[in-house]
């Protein structure tokens, strides 16, 4: 996978557009087992990310992702804000100074992001959170020879599996067993994030090829 500074930027912009388009659906998912604001939070935050990064030039992947992380932290709020913000912040540390990120470095960045989420959220896999998407994606990425399509496919399947899980973290946990049978909104937005990667890589490939 060819993740350049420009591709990274396109990735975040595409993700932003997807959050916007799925704002209503994400909030609906959150309505069912949380407080109904996840889509609004993500859309609000990523609209600001776009404003921040769209017309700025960056030298490295880390730079783009760091700007995104700071914006997310200060604009999303709720649980998703600090979690996505921390995830991007940690990944940006790994990708700092790199105009292009190798498959191995990509996986390292994901790993750092996941550690950030887990630490900030005191959470782990299997608790019906965004981690239930991020961790399978990391496992897929760690196999090497990353294909964005494959990551997105993994994310999709992992997201769908959250339906069967009982929530142990976040607001959905208050429902206990009643949380089963619903997709986790943060897992869904995470799926959208990895889905957006496909588009960015394809566009990048075309631009380069």
């Amino acid at each position, binding site marked *: 996978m060819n993740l350049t500074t420009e591709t990274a930027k396109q990735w975040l912009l595409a993700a932003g557009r997807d959050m916007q388009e799925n704002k209503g659906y994400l909030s609906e998912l959150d309505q069912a087992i949380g*407080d109904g604001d996840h889509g609004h939070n993500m859309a609000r935050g990523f609209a600001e990310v776009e404003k921040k990064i769209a017309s700025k030039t960056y030298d490295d992947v880390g730079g783009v992702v760091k700007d995104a992380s700071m914006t997310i932290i200060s604009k999303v709020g709720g649980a998703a*804000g600090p979690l996505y913000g921390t995830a991007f912040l940690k990944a940006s540390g790994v990708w700092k100074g790199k105009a292009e990120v190798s498959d191995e470095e990509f996986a390292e960045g994901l790993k750092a992001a996941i550690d950030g989420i887990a630490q900030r959220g005191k959470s782990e896999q299997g608790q019906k959170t965004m981690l239930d998407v991020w961790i399978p994606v990391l496992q897929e990425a760690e196999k090497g020879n990353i294909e964005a399509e494959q990551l997105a496919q993994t994310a999709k399947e992992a997201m769908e599996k959250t339906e069967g899980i009982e929530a142990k973290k976040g607001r959905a946990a208050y429902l*206990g067993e009643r949380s089963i049978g619903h997709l986790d909104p943060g897992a869904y937005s995470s799926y959208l994030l990895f889905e957006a990667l496909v588009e960015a890589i394809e566009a990048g490939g075309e631009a380069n090829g």
Partner: protein
Amino acid sequence: MKKLINQTDDILDEMLEGMVAAHPNEIKRLAETNVIVRSNAPIKGKVGLVSGGGSGHEPAHAGYVGHKLLDAAVCGEVFTSPTPDQVYEAIKAVDGGVGVLLIVKNYSGDVMNFDMAADMAKDEGIKVEQVIIRDDVAIANPEDRRGVAGTIFVHKIAGAAAESGKSLKDIAELAQKTADNVFSMGVSLSPSIVPASGKPGFELKEDEMEIGTGIHGEQGIERKTLKPADEIAEELVQNLLKHMDIKNSRIALMINGQGSTPLMELYIMNRKVSELLNEKQAEIKKTFVGEYMTSIEMAGCSVSILKLDDELEYFLH
């Protein structure tokens, strides 16, 4: 959704403007933030008290900014925790040189955002302590319990203690003691509608109620047939007393309206609740009946009991 609003995106901003317009001598809004602070902040030599969270709980928390109460409230979007940079601005604005206490309700979002802000403030050399409120006994695991109306007791007691000149350490301990001794539980007759989504958080039939609801339009822990007020009072009190021994103790009581419940009904609830507590030989030193921590236009109420000692009773107002 029927509300007296303009654009849903403007609700928070316009609400804060309306608050400041109503009380210009008492409060002000920090420029370019959603933070309400006392107009005389920072008060030199006084510990600053900061609380906050998502909006939609009015009067919590901005309505508690004032004398013997909070120094600042950080107001997030409706039912959405505020971001760390906003909390950080609040901390800076109220630090009178002797540190700041953050009063945080136990939600993942609130805890994480306030935590990040505390780290930022500590990096700048400001002393920061936090107390996390977990009073909602509807949640079984004590670590996961939500912060609900009991939070107001912490505002009041820590607020009075801070005004009296106590140190950050002492106030943090006192706030923690208050938090450790307050338990709450709620029941709802109708849901709330987050303006941005325009849809109710859950649906209830004409003869149903939801027991153990939180303050964010979340569903509760059990749905039941609506019962007479006295039976509801009994159920709530019974649940609360599983967590505290009040026999021969002094207590403070709060019957909190969730947003659209007439005071009439809250007093009818108080009649039975106080009767039940008197039967347990508790001495009710102070009763609060009204809307203290709401969930937009949710109908229903919560009951909070705070077990008092001399110090808590002294500072409660």
